[in-house]
């Protein structure tokens, strides 16, 4: 009996020993949580698509590759004062011929690729061939539509010849990253789609890739041959791919990540409360709005659309949905743009005037059911948005409540993104809560010009105003910036008077960065604007 107990005790002791050994083995290993020194760890939601810049489509891929490959010039984030200017990069200068059709770039002569080979005019010519190759099928090839030829004048001079005059010649010539001709010209274009590009990357940007584990992480190291600026101060940057926003936040707050460029407003408070993190709050290049379907009899009258806008309390939306990280949106041009009309006044929150306007337009509640009618038809609208975006759903609820108060019945409806888009395109909606993210060059044609027959357009609400059309058609060709400004001002006033959209808010872009990182400049051009100058202790 006694012997048996001893063996049982021994057994238990052995089990306990084994379990504690396992636990020790697992938890006692070198603490791996802290990243190695001089390594910056960035959290992102999705992986890079390809290491060849002409075979990618996502914004993250483009932002990352811009750290590896050079461009002729760099667009400056100075669109607040004038159309964006360009700063020299590979090209130290450029000039147009007298007729404006020839654009000559003079390349810097001291630049080399990461493998030590010189950067020459051949690289620029080769890049243009790749950009316009049908076998490659780059989505941005349309920016080269008016470029007839790109010729090497000498080793460091290259000339772009345009087929016609238009304002975006420099922008279009500069579009796309420059490729290493000496290394890539041996790979036929038809093989590009099936080439594993990581092994072929030769860059001239501040960083070069050293490792990529698909769907896990991307590692870049400082390029020892970088000559466009001072060499990168951080030796290694790792992008951790975390496909879930909640996990991304968890890892950020746990100190595993140094930088995350997508922070939702409701997460801002936790970032600010964390002593190791700093919240970055910059203007976002987007505005959220309700697009009204102007072809519907209920919404064809601008007075009705204005009334709807007057009855919506934007401040409540800003305070609750955006937690204060937003400002009222006033019109079709962002308030951060040089062409924005500073005289525009925000539509006030004025339900009383809204009700009067609706009465003027013939809408009355004759049967006392709380909903206005006209000719026996109730003013009942469906407000469409996409289910993936809970902020837009919240906006729908708030708008429905506000409009209910003036007798407009609103049913919020959420659908999946693909369905949302196809319903917008088909015009199968009453009102839709959506957001436009604006490029740095102003182009109002796609959204505001009357939809031409048989052409796909983003003017989902089928807004049409002859005066707006006429101005949009001439403003692009106007060279004088003051006249341009005047035309844009007129366009904004006309659109705001018509209220085809209820302009809701311009959001803010929120990012989080570890307090151990120094020297980062944040703007909305790219989250990695001056990554080479960031410093770690």
């Amino acid at each position: 009996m006694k012997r048996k107990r001893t063996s049982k005790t021994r057994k238990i002791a052995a089990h306990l020993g084994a379990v504690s050994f396992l636990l020790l083995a697992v938890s006692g290993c070198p603490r791996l949580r802290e990243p190695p020194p001089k390594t910056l760890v960035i959290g992102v939601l999705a992986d890079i698509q390809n290491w060849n810049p002409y075979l990618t489509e996502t914004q993250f891929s483009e932002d990352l590759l811009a750290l590896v490959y050079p461009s002729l010039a760099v667009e400056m984030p100075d669109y607040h004062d004038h159309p964006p200017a360009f700063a020299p990069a590979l090209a130290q200068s450029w000039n147009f011929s007298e007729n404006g059709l020839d654009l000559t770039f003079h390349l810097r002569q001291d630049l080399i690729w990461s493998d030590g080979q010189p950067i020459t005019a051949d690289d620029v010519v080769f890049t243009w061939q790749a950009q316009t190759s049908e076998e490659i099928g780059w989505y941005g090839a349309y920016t080269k539509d008016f470029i007839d030829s790109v010729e090497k004048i000498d080793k460091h001079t290259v000339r772009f010849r345009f087929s016609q005059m238009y304002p975006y010649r420099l922008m279009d010539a500069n579009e796309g990253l420059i490729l290493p001709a000496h290394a890539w010209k041996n790979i036929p274009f038809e093989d590009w789609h099936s080439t594993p590009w990581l092994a072929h990357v030769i860059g001239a940007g501040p960083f070069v890739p050293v490792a990529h584990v698909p769907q896990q992480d991307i590692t870049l190291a400082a390029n020892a041959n970088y000559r466009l600026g001072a060499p990168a101060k951080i030796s290694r940057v790792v992008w951790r791919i975390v496909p879930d926003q909640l996990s991304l936040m968890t890892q950020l707050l746990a100190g595993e990540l140094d930088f995350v460029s997508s922070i939702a407003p409701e997460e801002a408070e936790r970032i600010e409360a964390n002593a190791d993190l700093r919240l970055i709050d910059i203007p976002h290049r987007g505005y959220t709005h309700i697009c009204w379907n102007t072809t519907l009899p209920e919404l064809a009258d601008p007075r009705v659309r204005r009334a709807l806008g007057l009855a919506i309390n934007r401040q409540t939306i800003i305070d609750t949905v955006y937690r204060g990280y937003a400002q009222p949106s006033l019109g079709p041009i962002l308030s951060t743009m040089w062409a924005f009309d500073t005289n525009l006044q925000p539509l006030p929150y004025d339900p009383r005037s809204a009700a009067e306007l609706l009465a003027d337009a013939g809408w009355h509640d004759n049967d006392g059911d709380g909903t206005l009618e006209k000719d026996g038809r109730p003013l009942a609208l469906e407000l469409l948005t996409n289910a993936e975006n809970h902020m837009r759903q919240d906006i729908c609820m708030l708008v429905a409540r506000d409009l209910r108060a003036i007798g407009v019945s609103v049913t919020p409806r959420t659908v999946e993104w693909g369905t949302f888009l196809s319903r917008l395109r088909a015009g199968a909606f009453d009102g839709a809560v959506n957001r436009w993210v604006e490029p740095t060059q102003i182009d109002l044609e796609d959204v505001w010009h009357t939809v031409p027959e048989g052409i796909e357009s983003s003017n989902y609400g089928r807004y049409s105003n002859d005066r707006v059309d006429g101005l949009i058609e001439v403003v692009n060709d106007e060279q004088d910036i003051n006249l341009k400004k005047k035309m844009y001002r007129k366009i904004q006033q006309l659109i705001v008077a018509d209220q085809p959209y209820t302009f809701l808010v311009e959001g803010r872009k929120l990012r989080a960065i570890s307090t151990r990182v120094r020297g980062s400049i944040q703007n909305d051009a790219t989250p990695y604007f001056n990554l080479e100058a960031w410093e770690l202790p």
Partner: protein
Amino acid sequence: MTRIVLRRLAVIPLLLWVVATVTFAVVQAAPGTYADTIDNPRLTPAARLHIKTLYGLDQGSFDQYLQWLGALVQGDLGRSFLFKQPVTDVITTALPATMLLAGTALVMDLILRILLALISARRPGSWVDRVLTVLSLGVYGLPSFWLAGLAILFFSLKLSWLPASHMASVGADGWSLGARWVDFIRHLILPASILGIVGAASTARYLRASLLDVRKSPHILAARARGLSEKRILWVHTLRPALGPLVTLIGLSLPILVGGSVVVETIFSWPGMGRVMWQAAVARDIPVVMGCTLIGALAVIIGSLVADLLYAWADPRVRPQ
């Protein structure tokens, strides 16, 4: 027997074709294309249209189907729109990760399931049995993303014992092989445990029930009459016959080994099939969705065949004459 197996193997292409056709129709019926889903505000409508043409998405659904089927017959699953590589490469990269995770989870699941059932069935109705029942039903009822979140909060954030995501730590590529293995196992523990525990909790009850059924059968009474110890009766004479249905379940687990778990793989940033399939579905990456579906369908078909064979091997009564 061989003829039955051969006959079932022969219908596999037909079954796959049916699955593929139905899936293709469903994917095509979903609104929007890959070109619409790309997250890039710099893409103009012209650029999106161009991308549509590039991938042949501007053609009719039937034309796309014929092209896809034609390539498939030649063994070509096509190229992924989203991942920019052949679908076979996407799958061969994701499959090992999923098999490692789901395989470890399955082993944990089986061990845990047998242990739970044995403990419960030893004294049915006792407080141990009741507590285990409530616990396993409770775990079964919880959504796995919540359990995963809880595990991360506790084991990663509070205790800092285990990493919260990925298959390797930052900088692990520079370590020795041994250290990298330990690092990998540390990353495997949390996601595999979540999958294993949820699996065991949902099925331990079945094994317990069949254990109890077997206990009532005459051969157990005979064993007792022969004076065998209760331990031997439970482990040998009860457990073995009760494991029959379990064998089938293992066969049916094959699809999970291949398909992976969307939720757990996404939360733990595990680069497996579930996550790939989900990303592809959201991005309307038709070739990848089709490829994953075919692999999944194949796993279901083979899995049920294997289950039947295993069952026939374990239980002579169901063997075809």
